[in-house]
């Protein structure tokens, strides 16, 4: 399908704007950690829908299996036991791509069309354009993209862009037994989150809150947390994530400036040659040899 048929807000390594005239609703996934029972139905459903099979690893003394996001596991339940808030708590967080409004991966990617941000907010990897350089891994503030050993392409949660494109909800959200995962327009999700936060505050979680970090322009995957003031409790969910300044510098103004500088250096040489002219050694210099 050509570009027009899909509403793309941003395309990696493309300095000209993509077709984005239409205003479509922005979708969002809400992960309500307070309702999550860590059952990994989302991990199963994600692997099954996307035809992925993870390697059977070993148990390192944790419920988090596999141990980390991989090219085969695009979402992962991270378990953390803490007694910081008085009683024992088992904080379980569904890790995966946050689909940022200002995606670090897309900013870092050098290959045109490898990373696409649709108007509905989904940030999707198009592996056929991915060259496997891994810049996006450096660009992402949440350490999500994973390089596959088999084909050196980078993979991450696509928020089931194929299902959402035909109007279905993502596979993990449909599977979630306790409605810890909810899908809909971003406004609805924020509204739903506020209701949940009100209920949580009644149950004694004063710091319950919504995790929608402004540092990356807000995300299309948001959390409702018991302790929104200490997100690092949840297996170090970044407190206020931003695209790292190093990457900002590297991919920011330095790029066009350096390109121009190189071009002008070459041009300066040519202009110098044309004006000052070459530096020759005349014949008589030959003769004057003693």
């Amino acid at each position, binding site marked *: 399908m050509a570009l027009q048929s899909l509403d793309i807000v941003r395309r990696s*390594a*493309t*300095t000209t704007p993509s077709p984005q005239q239409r205003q479509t609703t922005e979708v969002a996934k809400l992960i309500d950690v307070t309702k999550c029972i860590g059952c990994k139905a989302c991990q199963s459903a994600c692997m099954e829908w996307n035809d992925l099979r993870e390697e059977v690893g070993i148990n390192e003394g944790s419920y988090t299996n596999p141990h980390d996001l991989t090219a085969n596991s695009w979402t992962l339940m991270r378990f953390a036991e803490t007694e910081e808030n008085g009683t024992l708590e088992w904080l379980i967080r569904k890790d995966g791509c946050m689909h940022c409004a200002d995606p670090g991966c897309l900013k870092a990617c*050098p*290959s*045109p069309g490898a990373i696409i941000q649709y108007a509905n907010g989904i940030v999707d990897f198009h592996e056929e*354009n991915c*060259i*496997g*350089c*891994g*810049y996006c*891994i*450096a660009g992402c503030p949440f*350490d999500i993209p994973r*390089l596959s*050993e088999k084909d*050196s392409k980078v993979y991450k949660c696509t928020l089931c862009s194929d299902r959402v494109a035909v109007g279905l909800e993502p596979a993990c959200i449909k599977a979630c037994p306790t409605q810890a995962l909810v899908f809909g327009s971003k406004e609805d999700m924020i509204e739903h989150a506020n209701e949940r936060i009100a209920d949580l505050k009644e149950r004694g979680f004063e710091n319950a809150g919504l995790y929608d970090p402004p540092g990356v322009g807000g995300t299309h995957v948001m959390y409702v947390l018991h302790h929104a003031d200490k997100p690092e409790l949840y297996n170090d969910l970044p407190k206020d994530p931003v695209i*790292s300044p*190093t*990457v900002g*510098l*590297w991919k920011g103004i*330095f*790029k*066009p400036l*350096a*390109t121009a*500088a*190189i071009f002008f*250096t*070459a041009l300066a*040489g040519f202009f*110098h*040659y044309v004006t*000052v*002219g*070459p*530096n*020759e*050694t*005349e014949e008589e*210099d*030959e003769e004057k*040899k003693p």
Partner: protein
Amino acid sequence: MTTRHSPRSIDRYSPSERLNHWITAITFLMLAFSGLALFHPSMFWFTQVFGGPTWTRILHPYIGVVMFVSFSLLAFKFWRHNFLTRNDIVWLRRIGDVVRNREEGLPEVDRYNAGQKLLFWTMIGTISLLLLTGIVIWRPWFAHYFPIDIVRLALLLHAVCAFVIICGIIVHIYAAIWIKGTLGAMVRGTVTRAWARKHHPGWYKQVTEGEKH
């Protein structure tokens, strides 16, 4: 360097040095183009030269290692001729005249003038840094051994050093075209005596020292 000098020309570079130089040059050019392709989208089309974007990303680091090896041979051969002397400082201060082809009254230049020496040391600095940062960001082999902040820093440094060295080499190439006869030195290995006397009097004296007749 006991070389045979014909009446009109002097040997400046031996065939092995020239070969070494041109390997470094060619690999550098490939690196520059493939690197720039990944540097800015406007130049992404360079990747077609290397057989597609993925091959560009695959080849770049390997060529980088080859260039580093050949450059280090080169550097090992010439580092003795590149110590900055007082004359070089004076030469630099009068860079305005140099650029306007007014060479009278310039201090005596040895085998390499101050510009070339400066370029030499910047190349040593940047290329070794390029190798180091290059390994840190080399996927899929080494990058995952390094924490993500190091990788980010390496990416930035790699880009900055590349920018510096590319500008340097553009000046280097232009200088060869600008000063007629220089290219011959690296292509055929010989320069005219007049060229040597005009551009590198110090070096000329040393080389022709043995020929008293």
